[in-house]
């Protein structure tokens, strides 16, 4: 409800500003023009959305698989943690905008360089909180499990892994929030289709309203993914303190 009021106030101010300032529509289209484009260009938007959504979802899936595998490795092996963690932080410095064209030359114009970039950007926020949570087992809980005769694997299976699940969800929510930007950046440096590509094309064609419409579609998709994750967490981890009823929902 609060979100609705803010959105309405924001759009109203924007609309008013475009009228009062007399800015050309190709510089700043009014919300009504963007809404018009959402309707008129729906086929074009849908076609490009399918491409970007695939890149985001597959990229997130790669990030999750890679992130969980890396987290497990770093958690279980002190040597791997000391050796690899700094390198993982290092990967986040890679200026993707600049190396993306190289990846396109390497992997081609298809979906592969996009997956690579989305996964590269998204695995990091998954690994960091999950790894921290895995390492935060209560010493008394560890003592208890030890006196029960638990092996290293059983400590992970019965205590550490379940207690890290809320952090895994938190990390995935962060990853979802940045996946769209990663996908758009990837398309920016070489692609045939996608909402990023469409935005890039629309601006020199003075179809600014369409560029904004593409952004609105991406926003709606990201919000839907995020809300879906929140709902899933509440369903799967009803015991988790980080998913109290409604408190963290973005809606």
């Amino acid at each position, binding site marked *: 409800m609060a979100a609705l009021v803010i959105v309405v106030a924001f759009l109203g101010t924007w609309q008013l500003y475009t009228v009062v300032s007399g800015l050309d529509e190709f510089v700043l289209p009014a919300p009504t023009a963007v809404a018009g484009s959402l309707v008129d260009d729906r086929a074009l938007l849908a076609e490009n959305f399918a491409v970007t959504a695939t890149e985001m979802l597959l990229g997130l899936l790669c990030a999750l698989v890679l992130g969980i595998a890396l987290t497990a490795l770093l958690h279980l092996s002190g040597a791997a943690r000391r050796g690899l963690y700094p390198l993982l932080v290092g990967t986040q410095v890679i200026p993707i905008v600049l190396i993306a064209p190289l990846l396109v030359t390497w992997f081609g114009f298809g979906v592969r360089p996009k997956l690579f970039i989305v996964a590269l950007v998204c695995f990091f926020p998954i690994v960091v909180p999950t790894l921290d949570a895995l390492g935060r087992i*209560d010493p*008394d*809980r560890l*003592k*208890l*499990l*030890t*006196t*029960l*005769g*638990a092996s290293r694997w*059983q400590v992970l299976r*019965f*205590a550490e892994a*379940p*207690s890290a*699940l809320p952090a895994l969800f938190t990390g995935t929510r962060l990853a979802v929030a940045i996946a769209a930007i990663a996908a758009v950046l990837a398309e920016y440096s070489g692609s045939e289709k996608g909402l990023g590509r469409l935005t890039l094309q629309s601006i020199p064609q003075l179809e600014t309203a369409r560029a904004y419409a593409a952004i609105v579609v991406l926003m709606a998709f990201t919000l839907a993914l995020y809300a879906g994750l929140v709902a899933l967490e509440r369903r799967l*981890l*009803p*015991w*988790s303190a980080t998913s109290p009823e409604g408190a963290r929902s973005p809606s």
Partner: protein
Amino acid sequence: MILEGVAHAYGEVQALAGVGLRAAPGEVVAIVGPSGCGKSTLLDVVCGLITPQAGHVEAPRAVLMPQRDQLLPWLTALDNAGLALRVGGASKAEARAAAHPLLEELGLSGFERTRPAELSGGMRQRVAFARTLLAGAPVLCLDEPFGALDAITRSDTQAWLAAALERRPRTVLLVTHDVEEAVLLADTVIVLSPRPGRVLATLTVALPRGAGGRVATDPGVVALRAQALGAMR
């Protein structure tokens, strides 16, 4: 179970300085002393979690019930109680089948599928105790099991613990800072000094356990309590 001259230090801090105690099978030994006297260290030694720097320890397998119940928040009461069996290799169904009658016996019928967050403090302690019993070890090490409970819950919980041990005798090491609790529940009370912990007095509680356990106002209980407190001063 025999401990002789057990001493242990963490770095500069001497936690235990030559503690000896004996417990016969089925005996309840309470260890009382001020906080920081090395009571928990003593339990760690008995449970084999640390090897003392000096002394001799002869103890069968012991299982720990930590200070806070340490129930796993994602498991139901039934699955928490059966955790020891799962760790021992039992299937989920087998563990549940074994834990079910014990929860019933401890008055938790109807709460089997409840998660710890929705259980009261007293109930959580009972689930933790069920988990400890089901580990099947001959020795139970209870670290301040009732420390976090309010007075009424505490006295109820003490009564069912006494009753449960009556039905399923085990050797119990009960760590507490409450002298009265020690006298109510134990056969032997060992009074430890402030850090570094050493044995100040070993009191035998030769009082009968009635149907409802011992009563705090019983003159025998009062006398022993005074004796233990005297030893601590």
